[in-house]
């Protein structure tokens, strides 16, 4: 065990995108057989650094050493040849194909598929056994849960002989239970001598699984520490450069009149399943109602039906006391009536990544007379509007003309948040408000939501983070299997109580 060369050594890596210096003379050493965390604010340059290691970008200067050997990595095939694998946040899987077909994709080993598949099947069985990764090789990938799809990505990397595995915000899309399973797997990988690089915004995860952690700020490495010698508060301070409030502070609510009332909502999906069953809820002015539930129990369907993206099979929705009939329930009309929506899957639903940031700042509001005259839009007005929002929400860089795809993940999220929150909604539907954003931004977003509530806005909050739901909400509804299984005042409940409701042990049944 004496002085193995480090699995990866990055030395003096710099990378600029035009005027933006995404990485400035970054050096990082990753010990073989360790789990190494990387944290940092949105836009700090974490994904860029990993993209350089994986051959998506080439560094402007600097050196990469793999197991002590200098390597040029100019493409992902070079990276794979050097034993580096990456699990992207947006999976690169072919959904209609089976697990084993996805695994051999790009490594078929010949013109005839049969041999490659048979070999992969054997190898897959071995890998599954070694790491306790149960998966059906013939399952169709598109039908697997997100957590299982991620496993397929990991298996794909391992099949290609990855010794070093890079995971960029792997838990952003997972339920807490799935995240725990992932960490089990990472520990198993480590036990087999593999090296893992983990990027995440959740300090809890850093504390739970990593051996060492590196902190990035504005393109630079600012700290490397042993995980057991640091604390979340210390890491947060190193990231942001100031003390961060990790707790939400709020005054008692001033509850007003009911604004959004839903009664007996039932949603049936295209396969004929009832994804939401007979749900009734009321949102009052000046309160935050949180939805607690394991992901996939009807939260997304509830948000979509209230936002007018899907139509209920049964049920009544009232906004401001008036019944909305089917023709009124479309997103454009609901926006006009003051119901704004921050979608859960912001990158795919809430943004057009091919557009400039400024154009995305008016998505859903392009008919607003404020942005132009008659049938025309004014680029100047749109740019001004976008710039103000970006400054307010600390989107970096403040460049409304930059294509949205070129912003870091968290900054893209902030563009959507700025757009919807700043429209002075009466009712705000929020899905996963802090998914993918850094802790400084989480603090900021939580404050904004509380301020909106204090100003009389009715807010419906859906989040996979139970902690977040409990911290922000005044009232909490539990969803299980598409049904509301209970309601609690936030002050009179705890995690255990909610956990029971979320598991479907309803008070009525008990």
């Amino acid at each position, binding site marked *: 065990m004496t002085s193995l060369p480090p699995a990866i050594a990055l030395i003096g890596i710099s990378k600029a995108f035009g005027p933006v210096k995404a990485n400035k003379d970054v050096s990082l050493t990753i010990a073989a057989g360790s789990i190494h965390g990387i944290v940092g604010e949105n836009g700090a340059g974490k994904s860029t650094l990993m993209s350089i290691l994986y051959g998506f970008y*080439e560094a402007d200067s600097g050196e990469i050493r793999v197991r002590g050997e200098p390597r040029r990595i100019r493409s992902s095939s070079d990276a794979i040849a050097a034993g580096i694998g990456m699990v992207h946040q947006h999976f690169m899987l072919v959904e209609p194909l089976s697990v084993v077909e996805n695994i051999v994709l790009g490594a078929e080993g010949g013109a005839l598929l049969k041999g490659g598949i048979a070999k992969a099947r054997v190898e897959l069985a071995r890998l599954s056994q070694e790491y306790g990764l149960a998966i059906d090789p013939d399952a169709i990938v598109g039908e697997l849960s997100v957590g299982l799809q991620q496993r397929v990505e990991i298996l794909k990397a391992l099949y290609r002989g990855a010794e070093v595995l890079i995971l960029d915000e792997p838990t952003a899309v997972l339920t807490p239970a799935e995240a725990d399973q992932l960490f089990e797997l990472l520990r198993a990988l480590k036990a087999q001598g593999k090296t893992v690089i983990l990027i995440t915004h959740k300090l809890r995860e850093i504390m739970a699984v990593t051996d060492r952690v590196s902190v990035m700020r504005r393109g630079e490495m600012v700290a490397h520490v042993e995980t057991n010698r640091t604390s979340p508060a210390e890491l947060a301070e190193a990231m942001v450069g100031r003390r961060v409030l990790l707790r939400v502070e709020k005054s008692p609510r001033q509850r007003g009149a009911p604004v959004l009332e839903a009664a007996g909502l039932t949603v049936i999906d295209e396969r004929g399943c009832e994804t939401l069953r007979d749900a009734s809820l009321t949102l009052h002015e000046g309160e935050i109602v949180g939805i607690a539930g394991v992901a996939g129990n009807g939260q997304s369907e509830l948000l979509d039906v209230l936002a007018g993206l899907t139509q209920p099979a049964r049920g009544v929705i009232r906004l401001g006391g008036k019944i909305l009939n089917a023709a009124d329930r479309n997103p454009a009309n609901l926006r006009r009536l003051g119901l704004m929506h921050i979608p859960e899957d912001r990158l795919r639903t809430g943004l057009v990544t091919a557009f400039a940031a400024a154009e995305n700042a008016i*998505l859903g509001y392009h008919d607003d007379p404020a942005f132009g005259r008659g049938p*025309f839009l004014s680029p100047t007005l749109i740019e001004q509007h976008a710039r103000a929002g970006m400054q307010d929400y600390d989107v970096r860089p403040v460049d409304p003309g930059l294509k949205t795809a070129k912003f870091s993940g968290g900054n893209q999220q902030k563009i959507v948040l700025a757009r919807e929150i700043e429209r002075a909604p009466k009712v705000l539907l929020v899905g996963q408000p802090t998914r993918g954003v850094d802790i400084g931004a989480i603090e900021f977003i939580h404050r904004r939501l509380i301020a909106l509530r204090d100003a009389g806005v009715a807010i419906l909050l859906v989040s996979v983070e139970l902690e977040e739901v409990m911290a922000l909400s005044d009232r909490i509804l539990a969803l299980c299997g598409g049904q509301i299984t209970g309601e609690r005042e936030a002050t009179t409940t705890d995690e255990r109580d909610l956990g029971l409701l979320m598991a479907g042990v309803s008070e009525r049944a008990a």
Partner: protein
Amino acid sequence: MSAAPIDLPRWADTALVPLVSVAAALVVAGLVVLSIGESPLEATALLLKGSLGSLEGLGFTLYYTTNFIFTGLAVAVAFHAGLFNIGGEGQATIAGIFAAIACLWLAPLPGILLVPLAILAAAAGGALWAFIPGYLQATRGSHVVITTIMFNFIAATLIVYLLVEVMGKTGSMQPETPDFPKQAVLTPIHELLGAFGLKLPSTPLNTSFLLALASLVAVWALIYRSRLGYAIRTVGANPRAAAYAGISPARIIMVAMAISGALAGGLAVNEAMGVQHRLVLDFTAGYGFVGIAVALMGRGHPVGVSLAALLFGVLYQGGAELSFDKPTITRDMVVVIGGIVILFAGALDGLFRRLVATLLSSVARKPA
């Protein structure tokens, strides 16, 4: 495996890549010319001289360019909505029928009314013929690529029937309508400028060229400056986000197809009202299909479309002159050269994007 995303500055994407692909096409076309024992340089010189070297040649070149602007814009608008309209031929055919009906029925009207009405009729005919496939895709999910092709066949058969059985000139052996009334004819440019004392040779170039230029500006304003254009681009880029934004993809598909078809109708305006002064069979002559290459090469942007349309205008006119001057280079040979340009600029576009990206990044790195 997946390589780095191809990321180019705008100027390189809109100007450099098409230039490189056209240059490559010319090299290959040159080899073809060489292989039949002619000098590529001489052929190029003849081609340029024939298309741009004289006022007469230029007039013909711009006449062809007019057609390509209309059909190129038609394809481009549909592209922005994520639709592949390959029915330009059929839409122009129906536009021609509508324009002919207007010109012949409303013959008593003065030109100042008749011309705009006939142009509107052409646009309406083209729009209708594109709207139906749009409607079918929006409501029934039948893909416009399939339906617009089928509509090309229907239109081609319909015009034969009408010209032979219904609208044909009595006593003529040709499938064609009677001549349009004089006041329905679009003024040739040489006559227009002649009125200002400029003497120009007689060419088919007519005022529909000005209409084409106006359409370029109008499409630019529509796509990049209007609320409707924003909605069109949103649907084209991300239909999910469009639905979230309250934009109905179904409505936009129908609207974009109708606009696209109306633009294709410009081809009928130029050919029937500007050049032939009557409706003849097969006046669309494949311009609708070349429009696809024009839009691809021009990246769907009106500036790019106008440059690509000019390039094809040069190829058509210069090619005709070339085969006239050099009998060894037949008309078919010229079609081959045009085909090579389409192949390189349209289909192999990604190849050149990657090449240019690699070149640029290695150039950018050197001074550091």
